[in-house]
């Protein structure tokens, strides 16, 4: 690996900033979809407010995803040739944990989607938009999840 280049492009963020960014990257998109769909249909959120809030959440989410992606020279997304043995271990563990988290959250989301309409007494109609948002969210979050895991887990550099 080219450690000089890696060191020069390292982007350090303290953990107190990285962790909130990782959370925003993960929950921002579902919150935006909530503003656009359930918030308007179930909670009576005005469309203009719901739409703007959703758009703002998407922008904040994309910013958070970009920041955690850049963390430590794209450590979570880098190929083996750009990493040393410790970094490869960190990246591989992040991918394994991402898979576990993704499967777990998807299962919980499916159960919640099945239970909530019954509890609230309102039907959940599956529209093309809803399925589209779900698929887009799954793609977006699965891409950002390894970066979020690394950003959450890595300790600050101590000297």
């Amino acid at each position, binding site marked *: 690996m080219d450690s000089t280049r890696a060191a020069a492009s390292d982007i350090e963020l303290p953990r107190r900033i990285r962790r909130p960014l990782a959370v925003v990257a993960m929950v921002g998109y579902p919150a935006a979809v909530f503003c656009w769909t359930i918030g308007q249909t179930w909670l009576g959120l005005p469309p203009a407010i719901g739409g703007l809030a959703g758009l703002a959440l998407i922008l904040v989410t994309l910013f958070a995803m970009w920041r955690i992606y850049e963390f430590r020279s794209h450590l979570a997304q880098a190929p083996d040739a750009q990493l040393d*043995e410790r970094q490869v271990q960190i990246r591989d563990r992040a991918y394994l944990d991402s898979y576990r988290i993704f499967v777990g959250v998807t299962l919980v989301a499916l159960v919640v989607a099945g239970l909530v309409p019954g509890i609230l007494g309102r039907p959940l109609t599956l529209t093309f938009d809803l399925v589209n948002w779900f698929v887009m969210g799954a793609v977006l979050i699965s891409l950002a999840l390894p970066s979020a895991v690394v950003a959450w887990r890595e300790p600050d550099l101590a000297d």
Partner: protein
Amino acid sequence: MPAPRPDIRIHNRLAVLRAERGMSRQELADSVGVNYQTIGYLERGDYNPSLALAFQIAAHFELPIEAIFSPEPFAPMSAALYSTTRVGAGA
């Protein structure tokens, strides 16, 4: 099924050897082909090196591997140099 692997911490003298030779972490990292942060992780004991990396480091310092890495904590250098009794002899 194999028994669960215990977490073994590998102790090392990297910080002392690097200080002796006036090397920065970046210089050592460049010479053994790892990121400079990995040297910090090694020195703090937060990461155990692979056998290949341990041999590379030993070759870099021109020392036997057991002089740099050990599963047991190293005695302080002053004790090793000046003590009249063997450290860890139990006497």
